[in-house]
């Protein structure tokens, strides 16, 4: 067989693989959106879910998902940034750094159900909070942190070395160089990474089953006092998120329209994650343009 023929075969095999991947993804996405889309309307998105009767919505779950996501990012971004800066700029190559890196990698590949069990021990039992939004957000922080550290470290490392040299050669201190040269240059990739991580956090269920719980108390959306038990902002109340809701109605739902609710919720979840991904791309490139062009 001559090399031209082999080349052609190789090319077609890769096209075939690519086509398979695209077909599976488009098929899956299309199936979920096709089945769920008809269910989507304002009422479904805003009304509370029902326990027995048909016609319940996902309002509380949607709110819970975004609230937990928000809290998780509030915890993760500063920690991840700090860890990433340390790993990229301060950690000296050696045993300690290797040990830290191994820990981060192990943590990143930890199954989320294990993180859920850890969360149950730490944030539910040990703290005595019971199932709570805060516990869920902390469990998701554990889940998300290694990824954020990696994202920040990689983003800082890809900033060109000569930029850093230029700054140091002007007599600017290491910390100032990080702050004024490295971080701005790395910001678009960090932002993109953070938004992508948000998509992952948004769709996470297993880590929340035993930390944020499977129920949501009756919420009064006109009460924004975070210390009140019926307030949606109260971080010590249990909160079922959208991903958990999908799992819950499918396994133990007593409502007659299980299928519709699950389809609708799945579509909302997928569309949200899709929006996160598109946002990541758009905002990332927009910020990059803004930073590199005029001030």
């Amino acid at each position, binding site marked *: 067989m001559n090399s031209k023929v082999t080349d052609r075969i190789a090319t077609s095999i890769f096209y075939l693989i690519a086509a398979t991947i695209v077909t599976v993804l488009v098929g899956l996405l299309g199936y979920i959106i096709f089945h769920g889309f008809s269910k989507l309307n304002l009422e479904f998105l805003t009304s509370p879910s029902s326990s027995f009767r048909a016609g319940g919505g996902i309002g509380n779950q949607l709110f819970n998902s975004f609230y937990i996501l928000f809290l998780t990012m509030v915890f993760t971004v500063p920690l991840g940034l700090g860890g990433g800066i340390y790993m990229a700029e301060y950690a*000296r*190559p050696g045993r300690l750094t290797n040990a830290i890196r191994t820990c981060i990698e192990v943590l990143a590949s930890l199954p989320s159900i294990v993180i859920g069990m850890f969360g149950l021990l730490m944030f539910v039992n040990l703290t005595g909070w019971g199932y709570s939004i805060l516990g869920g957000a902390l469990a998701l922080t554990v889940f998300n942190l290694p990824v954020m550290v990696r994202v920040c470290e990689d983003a800082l490392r890809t900033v*060109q070395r*000569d*930029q850093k*040299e*230029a*700054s*140091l*050669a*002007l*007599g*600017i*201190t290491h910390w*100032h160089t990080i702050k*004024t*040269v490295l971080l*701005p*240059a790395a910001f678009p990739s960090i932002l993109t990474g953070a938004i992508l991580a948000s998509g992952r956090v948004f769709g996470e269920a297993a880590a929340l089953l035993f930390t944020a719980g499977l129920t949501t108390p009756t919420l009064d959306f006109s009460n924004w006092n975070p210390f009140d038990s019926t307030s949606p902002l109260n971080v010590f109340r249990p909160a079922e998120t959208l991903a958990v809701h999908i799992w819950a109605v499918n396994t133990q739902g007593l409502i007659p329209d299980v299928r519709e609710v699950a389809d609708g919720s799945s579509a909302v979840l997928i569309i949200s994650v899709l929006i996160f991904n598109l946002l990541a791309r758009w905002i990332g490139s927009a910020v990059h343009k803004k*930073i*590199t*062009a*005029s*001030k």
Partner: protein
Amino acid sequence: MGQAVLTEEKTVFDIKNLNLWYGKNLALKDIDFAIYNNEITAIIGPSGCGKSTFIKTLNLMIQNIPGVRMSGEINYDHQNLINGKVDLVDLRKKVGMVFQKANPFPKSIYENVAYGPKIHGLKKKGKLDEIVERSLRDVFLWDEVKDRLNTSALGLSGGQQQRLCIARAIATKPDVILMDEPTSALDPISTIKIEELALQLKKDYSIVMVTHNMQQAARVSDRTAFFLMGELIEYAHTSKIFSAPSDKRTEDYVTGRFG
């Protein structure tokens, strides 16, 4: 006459017995060197001879490389840089550097030049504007960019970027400018512009220029040092190095017999 010689021979850097190791490798061997005021000192030699290493010792940028050790003396402004007590911020304000590849920050032209003075504490807009204009005029870039100071520096040509980097370096008012092969990534016309610029700048600054281009050394420098395998083989007035070198190895190198 004696007086004239004394002022002419005023040095900014005095280097004695400088040794430098990368880990266990001795990269600079027992260098004795002096850099004179308001002159261009060229450093030539084949790749790997230690010329880039040497120039990076003068602002201690070499210390950013892990595993570097030095002994001897690098005397600048009445202190030995090697004793570890030097304030790097002060030193690098006074000893600026321009790199092989133009490395402007991905910011506006104005921000690039104002960056150093700003971080060193200058806040007043008027004063900053003045410094930016003067620095850009000094590198003959002002007329080319004055209408687009707020556009990205990355939109400039390679030669303009390199002149911008020189402007950025002189904006902190240094005594010395180190240039590490400043034209090796540039086309001939941009190269000539940088050389002319260097000749202008030596009125106010002392310049140390590493170059692999011997014609360049011959064209612009007052003194030339020839490095080979970490040793300073010969250091003399440029005319002497190129017309009557005392060392056979220098002669072989400048006549193109090796390197």
